[in-house]
């Protein structure tokens, strides 16, 4: 039996309505929980990119990706494990200004976690840190056990592959070729 691990599904799609719904249906039917999700325009104009993480097995991921790929407006879906990717999440922490300043060794803490202060006023401070889940979580733990965290939010994962170009580019070129052939 293959064991479950965290997979990152990267999906390129046309920019049309209802796609998130179609993708979610495939996850739901296989009882897969979406751990994180982020959507944004990709490096290629007019093409959107979904980055979704989920715990599953390779066998299931293979089937899921094919079923997503099959939808008409999906250009291509891939799945990867962490080794193939450079990835980050961004986290924001809201703290009491008073406690934050009283805490001492603030600069050290900020440096240690490679975080930065985004905003500060009389009542609260907002700190930003990006990194892997364990890293943003470690800062969260440290802050909550010392001065307490008023608000906390972590984004979905964003990831790019370690390979040089967007994998989609080759595929797009191939498709354009096909179209040319069809026309001539």
């Amino acid at each position, binding site marked *: 039996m293959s064991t479950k691990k965290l997979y990152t599904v990267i999906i390129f799609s046309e920019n049309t309505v*209802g796609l998130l719904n179609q993708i979610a*249906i495939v996850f739901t039917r296989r009882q897969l929980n979406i751990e994180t999700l982020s959507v944004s325009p990709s490096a290629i104009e007019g093409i959107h990119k979904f980055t979704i993480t989920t715990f599953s097995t390779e066998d299931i991921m293979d089937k899921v990706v094919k079923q997503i790929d099959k939808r008409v407006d*999906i*250009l291509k879906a891939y799945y990867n494990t962490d080794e193939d990717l450079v990835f980050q999440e961004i986290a924001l922490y809201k703290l009491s200004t008073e406690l934050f300043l009283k805490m001492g060794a603030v600069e050290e803490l900020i440096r240690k976690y490679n975080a930065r202060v985004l905003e500060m006023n009389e009542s609260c401070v907002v700190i930003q840190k990006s990194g892997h889940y364990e890293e943003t979580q470690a800062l969260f733990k440290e802050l909550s056990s010392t001065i307490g965290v008023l608000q906390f939010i972590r984004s979905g994962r964003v990831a790019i592959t370690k390979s040089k170009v967007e994998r989609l580019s080759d595929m797009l070129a191939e498709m354009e070729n096909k179209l040319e052939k*069809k026309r001539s």
Partner: protein
Amino acid sequence: MEKQKITGSEALMKTLVAEGVDTIFGYPGGAIMPVYDCLYDYRDRIRHILVRHEQGATHAAQGYARVSGKVGVAMVTSGPAATNAITGIADALMDSTPLVVISGQVASPLLGSDAFQEIDVIGITLPITKWAYQVRRAEDIAWAISRAFYIASSGRPGPVVIDIAKDAQINKIEYEYNKVNYIRSYQPLPDVNADSVAAAAELINQAKKPLALVGQGVILSNAEKELVAFLEKADIPFGSTILGLSAVSSDHPLNKGMLGMHGNAGPNRKTNECDLLIGIGMRFDDRVTGDLKTYAKQAKIIHFDIDLAEIGKNVPTTVPVHGDAKETLAAVTALLKPAKHTDWIATFKPDEEEENQKVIQKELYPKSGQLKMGEVINKVSEASGHDGILVTDVGQNQMMGVRYFKYKRTRSVVTSGGLGTMGFGLPAAIGAKIGAPDRTVCCFLGDGGFQMTIQELGTIMQEKTNVKIIVLNNNFLGMVRQWQELFFNERYSETVMENPDFVAIAKAYNIAGRVVDKREELDGAIQEMLNHDGAYLLVATVETCGMVYPMIPAGTTVTNIIMGDN
């Protein structure tokens, strides 16, 4: 010069005509009235069949598509009409039937406001369509409809829903039609991979005991000739899935019958004896495979399919051949060495004899007792020269129908395979007759399923559709009763049916008919039905406690075949 402006509804009509549509199955209502008004001017070009329920519209469009190879078109209004159409849409997805369903929708400013008869058609149909799209502007109609036809009919076919807001039907636009035959994100015709073709040919050339499993993909890609050339060159015996039936004529020597739960013993048993299993345009459904853990473990597996998501979905594949069966079969055949597998093929004989003796003879040629379903079906098939189109409903009538009806031509079976939809038969038969007017359409129904869409007798009356309807009346929900007898200690919970006088109902619709319950009258009754000029209802009173055998209980091994002989 300025172009003349037309309404969205007229744009719809023009586009339908441009896409080759001449038949629509539908039902009007508030949110689609501008389109129906426009249809009135197109009566000379488009035949509209007014069904009696929107489920009937989708099933009839399915029947039409399945026999003709064209895209079936259904048209309904918003809200309850769209929800009534759902069953047929889901059925078409499961059975890869090309369908375009056009639904009316409330005017776009009202969308999202719970307006009268507003329903989220796209939200509901996304999981059961190949594509579902809402048109809110008249200028998008031509594009959306053309795209719908392209998607429905290409690659692995399936249903598409186009939901058109009422204001888009009314507003005026400059009409422009460009046929869609390319979508960047959708590549329906995969390039054939020469390596996998070579690898497949190599495996087949080495095989001593090959078995092919033929599915509907062969019919959908018009690859019947290529299939026969392939099978004959390498001398490969085959079994068909329920939807693959009629791709090759029943009497072809390599045809070893049907696969699956109520299929023939030979191909089911041989699945676990062959050294090479070749799936062609089929999807290893659980009704075919039974328990996957014990399925064909000894064999290498080649899977021909156009849908990449099917390859490896249920069974691990040794060599996948991704592509259109017409192309891939021809490519592989070119690399095959002519072979003979006489000894292997001879091993089917004992299975055939056993099934014949334990099941078939008793079912087809009983000497006494009440009529049997198989007996009636076999006689109808014979009397129509084994050249009719079989339409079935779901249940025992379906399994008996596909077991005992025989075929000479392709596209001769219309049945709800994947979804198993009761109520499918009668409207699908209407569509089948309209899609293949020169053929005899024989529609077998159970007394239960008949009453799920019995109102379509009205459509038959109005359209004068010449369908031969055979109700196999056992006064039971037979297939459920069979499971109760076998697996639920004969506790017949809610399966007895008290039925009306079906012939009287038909008569009220001006449809001729009779009951037959005596063996000596059966031939005459069938002749009377076939000779009758027009639709006919033959109600065959069959034994109440008939059983469909052989049977592989659900979820067990394909070789675990009950013959029902003790």
